[in-house]
Structures are given as C-alpha cells and as structure tokens.
C-alpha cells in the first residue's frame, strides 16, 4: 500500500467517526442555526443519524461505497435543504471507489470535488453565500494540491480539514444569500454557518479515518 492508498477499513471508519462527531456536535450546530437560521439544523442532524442507524440495521455494508451510500440515504431521508444536499454530496463521495474497492487519495479528491459540484448544482450557492459550500470548496482545493504534491493521505486530508475549519469559522463574517438564514440578513453576523461547520466535520472524519486507528475529530471550535 502506497502513501496515497487508503486502508481497507476506511469506509467504515469515515462513517462511524463522523457519526460520533456529528452526534456530539448536534446541540452546538442546532444553536448556530437558531441564532442565524430557522433553528432546525440540530434536529436535522439527529434525524440523519437516526436514519443512518436504520440503514445499518440490516448488517454492515460490505465496502467503502456501501458505507458512504448509507450516509447518503440517511441524509436524503432528512428533508429541508441540507438533507438532500448532503445526501447528494455523499452519493458522489461514495463513487470514489467501485464495488468492493477502497478509493485512493486522488479518487477521493475528485469525488469530493464532484460532491461540491452537485451541491452547487442543486443548491445554486456560490462561495461566499454562507453555506456548506464555503467549507467544502477550500477543502477540495487543499486536498487536490496536497494530493498532487505527493503528500500522504493523512497529511493531505489534514490540510483539507484545516482549510475547511478555517473557512467555516470565516462564515461568521458572511451574509447569507441562500437557505433560511438569508431571511435574517446581517443579524447573523458573528455566527458561523452550521452547514459549513458540519462540512468541516466531514472532512475531519475523512482525515481521522485515514489513520489506521480511526482517530478522533475535534469539534470544540464550534461552540
């Protein structure tokens, strides 16, 4: 296995790590949406994680694609705006590897880019609109760069995570133009966008899962 390769358990670890981190961050994410949105994002995260549990009830998925697809269906069962967008995002992320396979870093980077594209296709948000796209776009750029420059998976994904977190923090200075938060206008200033924060946790889970032992995702910067 080269530095660029991801280990066999990657898919399972991405999903289980992310699940734990989202469940932990749900109250804080909900709080952000309450302050600068319509307040339902925490519930939406919880519903997604409940759906995920149901998806996994029938037995563990066989491969990376199966694991991430379960996450996709979990979010597609949420409704609202973030549900279908995250659902489509994970659907493209799942395509990083074929059946029975594990993605390599380049494929993962391209899948993340495809995920960004699909979110933007359906959500029609540009960078700077104060959405999950704001965290996703710099992560994609950072991952592509790092992967292109030969960094190993953990480091490349670490760079992507850092870019995502920084950008998510930066959304506090943006005025929303998409989603429910756009109705509250400038009064959201100083409050980070919850979808962007959640997206940074996703990238963090990819980084953590790339380490053989899964590791942890820090969410204490959210609130």
């Amino acid at each position, binding site marked *: 296995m080269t530095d660029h390769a991801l280990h066999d358990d990657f898919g399972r670890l991405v999903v289980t790590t992310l699940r734990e981190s989202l469940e932990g961050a749900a109250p804080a994410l909900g709080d952000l949406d309450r302050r600068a949105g319509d307040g339902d994002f925490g519930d939406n995260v919880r519903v997604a994680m409940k759906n995920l549990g149901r998806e996994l009830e029938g037995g563990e998925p066989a491969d990376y694609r199966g694991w991430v697809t379960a996450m996709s269906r979990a979010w*597609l*069962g*949420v*409704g609202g705006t973030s549900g*279908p967008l995250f*659902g*489509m995002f994970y*659907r493209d992320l799942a395509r990083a590897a074929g059946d029975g396979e594990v993605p390599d870093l380049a494929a993962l980077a391209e899948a993340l880019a495809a995920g960004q594209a699909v979110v933007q296709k*359906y959500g029609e948000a540009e960078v700077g609109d104060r959405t999950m796209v704001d965290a996703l776009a710099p992560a994609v750029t950072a991952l592509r760069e790092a992967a292109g420059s030969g960094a190993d998976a953990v480091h490349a994904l670490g760079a992507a995570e850092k870019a995502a977190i920084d950008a998510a923090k930066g959304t506090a200075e943006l005025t929303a133009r998409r989603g429910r938060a756009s109705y509250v206008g400038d009064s959201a200033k100083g409050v980070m966008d919850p979808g962007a924060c959640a997206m940074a946790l996703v990238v963090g889970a990819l980084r953590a899962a790339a380490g053989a032992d899964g590791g942890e995702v820090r969410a204490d910067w959210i609130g």
Partner: protein
Amino acid sequence: MRRSIVNDPDQLVPEALEGFVLSHPARLALDAEHRFVRRAEPATGKVGLVSGGGSGHEPLHAGFVGPGMLDVAVAGAVFASPTALQVLEATKAADSGHGVVQIVKNYTGDVLNFRIAGEISGDDQVETEIVLVDDDLATDTADGGGPGRRGTAATVIVEKVCGAAAEEGQDLAAVAEVGRRAAASARTMSLALTAGTHPGDEEPQFALGDDEVELGVGIHGERAARRVPFTSADGLTDLLLDPLLEELGLERGTEVLAIVNGLGGTYPLELNLVARRLHHRLGDAGLAVGRSLVGSYVTSLDMHGVSLTLMPLDEELRRLWDAPVQTPALTW
C-alpha cells in the same frame, strides 16, 4: 382559539395516512415507512405519475390517487416537503417500466427534493420528468427572478390531465408535455378571511382586522402582499377574477376550466356564491365556463378563504379533463 382533533401532533401525518388508507382498503395501499399512498392495484403498461408535498392541503395529493389520476402520492409533514428519499421510493413505486412524471408544486423544498429524487432514481433505471406547477398569479414577478410563482390549485388540473394522458398510453415526454402546457396556461388567485391554524397551535398563522381581507395568499399561511377591505361575496369574487382576466387576456368565445376552491374552512354555500358570480361575470365577458369544479380540493388547514383558478380549454385539454377518473376525491 382553534383546538385540533389530534393525538400527538408529531404523529399527525402518519396516523392520518393510516386512517385514510384504512378507509379505502380496496383502492389504496400505504408505504408507512416512506409515507406514500399508492394504488392497491398498481397500474402497469403506462407512464407512472407521482406527486406529493407537505401535508395540510388535503384532499391533495393522496385523495387523487387512483385510475385516471396519480399512481402514488407522497406526504411530508404539515407544510414541509417530503424528503428526497421518500420521493425516491415513491417514484420507484410509481414506475412500471415506462418512466414516471413527477408533478411538483413550485416551492424551493419540494423542487429540491423532487429534482434530487428524480436524479437518484436514475440509479434504479427509472426515467423521470418533472412537471412544475406554478399557477399563483399573486407571486408573479415581472423580472422572472426569485423562486417564481407558487403552485396552488392548478395542481388538480395538472394531475388530472397528466393522469388521463398516461392512461391513454401517451409516452413519458408527451405526458409531461401536456402537464406543462396545462400548468403554463392556468392561473390562480386566492384570498383569506382567516388564516389556518397548525395542529397543536392555538392561534391562526396570521391575524386580520375585522375589515381586512388578505389578497394573494398561498397555501402555507404565508401573509400576502396586499390587504384589502372586506366586502360582499360578489366583491370578493371580483378581487380574484379581475387580475386573472387581465393576466389571461382571453378572447370572447373562449371556454375555460374554472376551479372555485375552498381553502379549508369555507363552507359550500359560500363557494356556491363565488361560483355564481364567476358564471355571471364570465358570461358578461363573452366567456364560457366549459368545465368547473367547486369544492375544497387544495386547502391550507382550516383557512377560511377561497381561490379561483382559470385555464382556457382546447380540445385536448377538455378530452383529458373529461376522461374517467376514480379517486377518493374526484370520480367521474
């Protein structure tokens, strides 16, 4: 205050769907997990038709499932879109190998979840076409920016004509095409004297003064842009009819399909007065009410108000409207 006949408000929709399907055991079946209602005897050999949206608009959409109209209706929570996954499963259930037309009222959440479900259903090799219903004249913005006109009572027309076209054996593109044609030519105006009240809430969604009428309401309890003075049944009808006639610019001799639609808390005597004025006014304008429907078909909980939908009829639309239909809320 209005109290509701409800158990746990969070369980209202699944419980109501259960009761609805129990009341039509021979005709309907329920997918409780994905909250959709389908024909007990699924149709084969024709284009499938799925519609749906938030609840609180009954009999829309589940009341229109049956031969001649929908194959599947999928329900979100009150005034909230169904999820993409629900729509996906509903779309798959509507398919018998000839593709599925999705009829979607134009609201951001509905459009997003239906579009995405349509995209994903391709994974399961279901071909889909979306027909967007956007008949609400009150939300027509000159510049065409923003989310566009909302979808309201013309949904019944679109579901009916698409249903008939599918039953006739028309293909996916043709069924979608006639639905789009109907949607494009129908316009609706609505007004409310009292807003609806969410199950579990005690107060209506907005309050009006005794002399005020909310003109241009939608079906989700949104406030409208204009508040006008309260007046007689004839006067209220004119408030709806005048902008519709101006917008549609129908030539004398045109035959229209009209829907006089109660928004939930309007009783039949009231709707009949509106229908009466409509007939008089159109007659005076040299127009004919070729077909009409008077009743509460697309509601907003118990909103006390009325909407008026007009669509010019041509031979094809008349034939499809007249075609047999057998659903809980519409049968002929």
